[in-house]
């Protein structure tokens, strides 16, 4: 074993976004030795991109807010298939976690009386999102990073984990390579926390960075842990579509909040064409009324552009499929039109939406005060992930914990904006705390040499082959296929084709041959990530096939209604002994009476 450099820690955290950093801080504060591994440099994880804010019922702006309201908003948003205990803990603990950031140096925007300011966001009843302009994620990750570096955490940057190591049933470490020279590393640990983020890179159009390849999902699955809710993916309705290079980059909901309207290529405001029955009462009858709502008229009802994210995304897809899209396959989002209504429209837009103005100016040569934007849905977030215990974040495999976007439960079928950043803090802390508790009862496990050799063999075989496949092409083809066949609008037939397609891509992956050496070689990294992307793609597809209804992030055109029976279950996914993917229907436990009552009271 002397062949590989070996590191020993009590707790190993894999991932340095908000969840991983918060977990590492908690674990190191308990006095144990903590290692933190991440694929990029410290401070660059996906969390840095979050914009809108972090949700916590601190009631700084509206004193009617409290954890009960936040809990019921989260459950309604998740269409009641959430893990209700996680939703409860999250709502209760988020305020303390946000205040703690302030004690560590975060500088949130302020209310007039000097407290943390909170803003309105979709699905939250009261202004609830603590924020710093539109760069909340940066503030959060930097605060955690700058606090964490003084805690004695050992950080391993640009190190990628490619396999979890087990001693019997228990996870006892991880096998990884460092990017610079491709050298392999062994990490031994009494407890391992996965905090690897999302899977956006399984789709062609995404707001996620290259890191979002579902590594944690696949590592856990391969180690025998259960995944849950994998069918639920959030497609944000408005991503940029043009120019091609910026496709997927987020266009904030705020544009529509300021009066922006959606139009098809015929100039029709199509959102008025399909308003779900249960929202009819709350939706404007006319463009005029919608406009008044955006200008703060409390007697007006919201314009249909502000219906739920999943619905808006589907309407956009419908227009494009019907041939009424823009030349680049989106629809128009027009804020410039408000000059018909107000005299100083360009100044007003620049003041209200500064970063959107600059984003389009700089990346698309487009002046949003004069021209409409082209937008379309973008893959944004996965509600599904590693199945965890609500209190401890323990996975179904001993020694393995998970937190953040790679874990699942709190969001159910759909996540509310702002609930991810708070999730990272609340459950990152819990994962750290309980991983330490677990680690203290353990001794270091044995590292099994044959496991390591097997992972290494698989990792390097592409250098020895003379196949003809390019890993970038396979990734590209997978992304295109998932986008087309397991995207926003799904049906059985297309998803069955996707399963066949995934099999084919798995075969093609075995024919990859690589050039160059293992020193900082992106084609090699991409080839390794493919295993993870294919695993999560299969899990998403299988779960989506099983859920024969439409709910939240999952829309089936062959089962377009919600079905109460499916509202009582989650789907879990596990690797069976033979290596096949096994899917199981598990009932959602009965909610305690007091939580039920909260939901009833809040309506």
């Amino acid at each position: 074993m002397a062949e590989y450099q070996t590191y020993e820690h009590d707790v190993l955290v894999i991932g340095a976004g908000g969840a991983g950093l918060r977990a590492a801080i908690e674990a190191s504060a308990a006095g144990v030795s903590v290692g933190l591994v991440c694929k990029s440099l410290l401070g660059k994880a996906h969390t840095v991109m979050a914009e809108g804010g972090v949700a916590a019922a601190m009631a700084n702006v509206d004193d009617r807010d409290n954890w009960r309201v936040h809990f019921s908003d989260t459950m309604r948003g998740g269409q009641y298939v959430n893990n209700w205990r996680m939703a409860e803990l999250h709502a209760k603990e988020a305020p303390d976690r946000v205040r703690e950031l302030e004690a560590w140096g975060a500088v949130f925007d302020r209310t007039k009386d000097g407290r943390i300011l909170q803003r309105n966001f979709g699905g939250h009843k009261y202004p609830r999102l603590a924020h710093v302009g539109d760069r909340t994620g940066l503030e959060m990750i930097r605060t955690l990073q700058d606090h964490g570096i003084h805690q004695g955490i050992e950080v391993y940057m640009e190190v990628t984990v490619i396999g979890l190591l087990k001693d019997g049933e228990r996870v006892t470490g991880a096998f990884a390579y460092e990017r610079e020279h491709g050298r392999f590393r062994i990490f031994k640990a009494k407890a391992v926390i996965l905090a690897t983020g999302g899977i956006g890179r399984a789709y062609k159009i995404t707001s996620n960075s290259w890191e979002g390849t579902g590594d944690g999902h696949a590592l856990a699955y391969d180690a025998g842990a259960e995944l849950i809710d994998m069918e639920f993916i959030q497609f944000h309705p408005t991503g940029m579509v043009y120019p091609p290079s910026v496709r997927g980059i987020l266009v904030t909901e705020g544009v529509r909040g300021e009066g922006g309207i959606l139009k098809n290529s015929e100039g029709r405001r199509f959102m008025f064409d399909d308003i779900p029955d249960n929202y009819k009462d709350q939706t404007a009858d006319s463009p005029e009324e919608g406009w008044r709502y955006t200008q703060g008229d409390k007697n007006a009802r919201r314009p249909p552009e502000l219906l739920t994210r999943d619905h808006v995304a589907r309407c956009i897809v419908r227009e494009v499929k019907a041939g009424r899209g823009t030349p680049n396959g989106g629809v128009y989002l027009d804020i410039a039109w408000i000059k018909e209504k107000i005299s100083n429209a360009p100044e007003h837009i620049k003041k209200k939406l500064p970063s959107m103005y600059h984003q389009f100016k700089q990346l698309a040569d487009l002046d949003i005060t004069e021209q409409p934007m082209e937008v379309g849905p973008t893959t944004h977030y996965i509600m599904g992930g590693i199945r965890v215990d609500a209190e401890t974040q323990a996975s179904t495999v001993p020694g393995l914990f998970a937190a953040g976007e790679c874990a699942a439960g709190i969001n159910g079928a759909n996540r509310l904006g702002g609930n991810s950043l708070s999730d990272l803090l609340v459950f990152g802390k819990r994962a750290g705390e309980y991983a330490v508790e677990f680690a203290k009862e353990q001794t270091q496990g044995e590292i099994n040499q044959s496991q390591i050799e097997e992972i290494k063999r698989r990792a390097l075989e592409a250098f020895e082959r003379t196949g003809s496949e390019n890993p970038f092409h396979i990734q590209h083809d997978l992304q295109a296929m998932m986008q087309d066949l397991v995207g926003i609008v799904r049906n059985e037939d297309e998803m069955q084709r996707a399963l066949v397609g995934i099999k084919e891509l798995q075969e093609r992956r075995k024919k990859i041959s690589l050039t160059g050496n293992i020193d900082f070689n992106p084609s090699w990294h991409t080839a390794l990530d493919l295993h993870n992307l294919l695993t999560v793609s299969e899990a998403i597809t299988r779960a989506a096939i099983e859920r024969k209804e439409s709910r939240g992030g999952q829309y089936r055109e062959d089962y377009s209604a919600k079905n109460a029976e499916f509202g009582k279950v989650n789907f879990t996914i596990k690797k069976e002994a033979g290596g096949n993917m096994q899917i199981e229907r598990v009932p959602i436990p009965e909610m305690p009476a007091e939580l039920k009552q909260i939901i009833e009271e809040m309506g």
Partner: protein
Amino acid sequence: MAKAAFKIWRGSSEGGEFVSYTTEISPGMVVLDAVLQIQGEQAGDLACRWNCKAGKCGSCSAEINGNPKLMCMTRMNTLPTDQPITVEPMKAFPLKKDLVTDVSWNYRVKEKIKKFKPRPPDAPDGTWRMMQEDIDRVQEFRKCIECFLCQDVCHVLRDHHKHEEFIGPRFLVYAAALEMHPLDTENRLRDLKDESNIGLCNITKCCTKVCPEGITITDNAIIPLKERVVGEFYDPITRFLNLFRKK
């Protein structure tokens, strides 16, 4: 479709050279897109860093036609295409491979700066009160995405290699954010004078010019810090008063 020619630095700490590539340019492309396209089609082992592709993470710093920039925010149509576009790594840091440099020095420097130390909470519930106007300046500094482009252009580091003595503009901004934080009670002025050698900065303002976040590094961070250091250590009246005053 139009094509553009590139000269991209390929090599390691042992040496290297510019290698020529040609790639197709589609509308709206940024330099990072071109580099990734070359990586995907012609040079799978071309090393570069990127994450957000939206100017938010500070990973993709490089020198484009000699100018320190974020590759993801540099549009192709802002560059002349009648000659090859050169892309090279930052110069103030040791090279790892191709466009990737070893920036670990920055992380070590940060660890040495004394951490945030807040005053006791203002309210019984453990929270503080701060007015927006009192934090505007600190929020400007906290916009920093740690791209290290300012470090790259600072002649004290780039030309004089004083990495052991001088912390560079990025960490002067960081220190300023801590020193000007309304809640902070730590005093870093002696360290700024003796350890960070703020005196080595001669206010050329090159750092401010390249900052992609538009942070007014010199005027808003470095000069006020220099004034505080002067006030603390060189001004006889302040020094006398300091005898009777805690920070």
